[in-house]
């Protein structure tokens, strides 16, 4: 009988703690997103631009401050957007967390990277492999990799920047911090300006549309339909080219699962869907006449997009590609 009490009690405890953990994560993401936004406009990490050119640079990042010496050349990164940023500045990371699948890195970045050592999954990169590469700078995701920050800091100067669950501004702020860490602020500023110019030109390209549709970006996988709101990366890129997000920004929860009824109520005028699995809620909803009535579906503006470009990669190159592809889709569907 004692066992029969313990088991449900343990399960209940487990549930409560896991729910609390979920809540905690959402909360901390919110504050990161907010910090990233201010960083994008010159505050936060971006405010240390004066560090560039110094031999010992103190980089302020999400998990503290780290001193980086000289020009790092053995860099390990655990997110595609950091690999993108570094390679844009001519620094080829020696180690990249690529989910053990080179093809997940979008082609332009993959070509720039050349040969590198895979350090495993982005969520849980391999510490021994990272150590064996003898890095002089490690760049990790502020949210996903926070738990291994102490171990990595013991190996090499480590900075934690926003990639996942950060919007465009937060990702740009992360790029600027990366530029300082690599001692190439001017080059990074050039890349950021290049992105902003590109987005502005795409914005004018779709000015010709009769009406700019409210756009929804979502990831569909087997039994989940995860919609990204204005606080997430892709919707913020889309709003930079003038497409209002169908879901307003929610910093506490940039991505959330959605059912058909909520989707019908949201009434997006254009939908960009990254399909992770061949069978997913979208394929199941197609038979439903309410789905057919959603403005985006009724006007043939339901687009299937590449999950690697739209969902897994963030950063300068992915932002340009997302904006470009969105414009192409909308102009061809006109």
């Amino acid at each position, binding site marked *: *009988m004692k066992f*029969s*009490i313990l088991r*449900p*009690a343990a*399960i*209940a405890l487990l*549930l409560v703690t896991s729910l609390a953990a979920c809540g905690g994560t959402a909360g901390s993401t919110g504050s990161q997103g907010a910090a990233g936004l201010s960083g994008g406009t010159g505050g936060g990490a971006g405010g240390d631009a004066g560090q560039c050119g110094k031999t010992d640079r103190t980089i302020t990042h999400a998990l503290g401050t780290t001193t980086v010496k000289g020009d790092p050349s053995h860099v390990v990164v655990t997110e595609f957007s950091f690999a993108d940023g570094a390679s844009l500045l001519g620094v080829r990371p020696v180690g990249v967390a690529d*989910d*053990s*699948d080179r093809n*997940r890195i979008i082609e332009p970045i993959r070509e720039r990277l050349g040969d590198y050592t895979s350090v495993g*999954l982005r*969520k*849980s990169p391999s510490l021994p492999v990272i150590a064996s590469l003898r890095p002089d700078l490690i760049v990790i995701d502020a949210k996903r990799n926070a738990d291994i920050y102490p171990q990595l800091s013991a190996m090499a100067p480590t900075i934690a920047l926003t990639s996942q669950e950060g919007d465009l501004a937060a990702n740009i702020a992360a790029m600027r911090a990366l530029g300082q860490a690599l001692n190439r602020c001017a080059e990074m500023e050039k890349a950021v300006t290049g992105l902003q110019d590109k987005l502005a030109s795409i914005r004018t390209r779709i000015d010709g549309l009769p009406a700019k549709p409210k756009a929804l970006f979502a*990831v569909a*996988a*087997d*039994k*989940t*339909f*995860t919609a990204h709101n204005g606080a997430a990366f892709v919707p913020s890129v889309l709003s930079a080219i003038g497409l209002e997000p169908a879901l307003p920004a929610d910093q506490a*929860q940039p991505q*959330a*699962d*959605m*059912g*058909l*009824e*909520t989707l*019908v*109520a*949201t009434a997006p005028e254009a939908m960009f869907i990254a399909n*992770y*699995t*061949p*069978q997913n*809620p979208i394929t*199941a*909803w197609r*038979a*439903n*006449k*309410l789905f057919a*009535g959603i403005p985006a579906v009724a006007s043939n503006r339901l687009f299937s997009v590449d999950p690697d470009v739209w969902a897994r990669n963030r950063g300068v190159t992915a932002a340009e590609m997302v904006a470009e592809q969105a414009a192409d889709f909308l102009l061809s569907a006109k």
Partner: protein
Amino acid sequence: MTATVRRRHPARPWLTAAAGGLALVVAAAVWHLTLGAVHVPAGEVISALTGHASTPGEMIVADIRLPRVLVALAVGAALAAAGVVMQGVTGNPLAAPDLLGVTAGASFAVVLALTVVPRLAEVSTVALALCGAAAAGCAVLALAGRSKGSGLRENRLILGGVTVSALLLSLTQGLIIFHENNAESVVYWLVGGVNLSQWREAWTILPVALAGIAGCLAMAGRLNVLALGEEMARSLGQRVALVRLCGAALVILITGACVAVAGPIGFVGLVVPHMARRLVGSDHVRLLPVSALFGGALLVLADAVSHFVNPPNEVPAGVVTALLGAPYFVWLARRDRKSA
């Protein structure tokens, strides 16, 4: 035993409990139908139910909410009935229908397809879940049936189920760990819910649930005899092993169909039979229908509550049943200890 039970619980409380269960089902369903991202006035809910779905609100009720409520009702009722049979054939009040390896088998098959052989997932994860459930169920029966002479023993059934479930669960975890890349897609197969159910799912599960519950009811008399103890049942001429085999097969079929349609939903099959037993005693003729009613009502309520956990987003009903079921079970266990 049956006679004493009947004396302690005369007919009227049984009928009251059944009527209460039915009223709860109706109330839960009506409440659920009024919930959702879109506000639909009660009048439109009623007109949608009477077959006039012309306004957007009525269409939402008829094409999104109603099938979902029906699936929740069918899955909850079938799982609760399967739980009663499971506890009956094993003689163990802690036995839940998912103990027979069925749930773990379904999850494993789907996770395997989604992570290792994505081509398989193109068919249909529902079909995969059914195959996985059936294979695991057969493995458990084969393991349990292999005792010399004595046929299918209740402990062997539980041991076989626990073994196969543990093996499959650890294999599933292994797949998720080694293929963390695709882990986003598999969460549903670890918790379960009816929030994506449409008419297709409803038409799949309703006949299975009805037939399954009818099958359980057909076994009620034999389960009553088995409850007297194996020796007594044998001396009364019951083929104990056959009853156990039929019961286990029924549980596997019901749970397999439920998990294929709604994912692994925990606690309903474990907690509801306990609740019902407190109300109507352990006569299976009464216990089964009352359990089915309360099981249906519980899952509909859990799915309704899921609207409020993290609005406007939805939480799978499996999370809510565990949240509701776990504290009840703690209370039940503590209460039993006090009275013992």
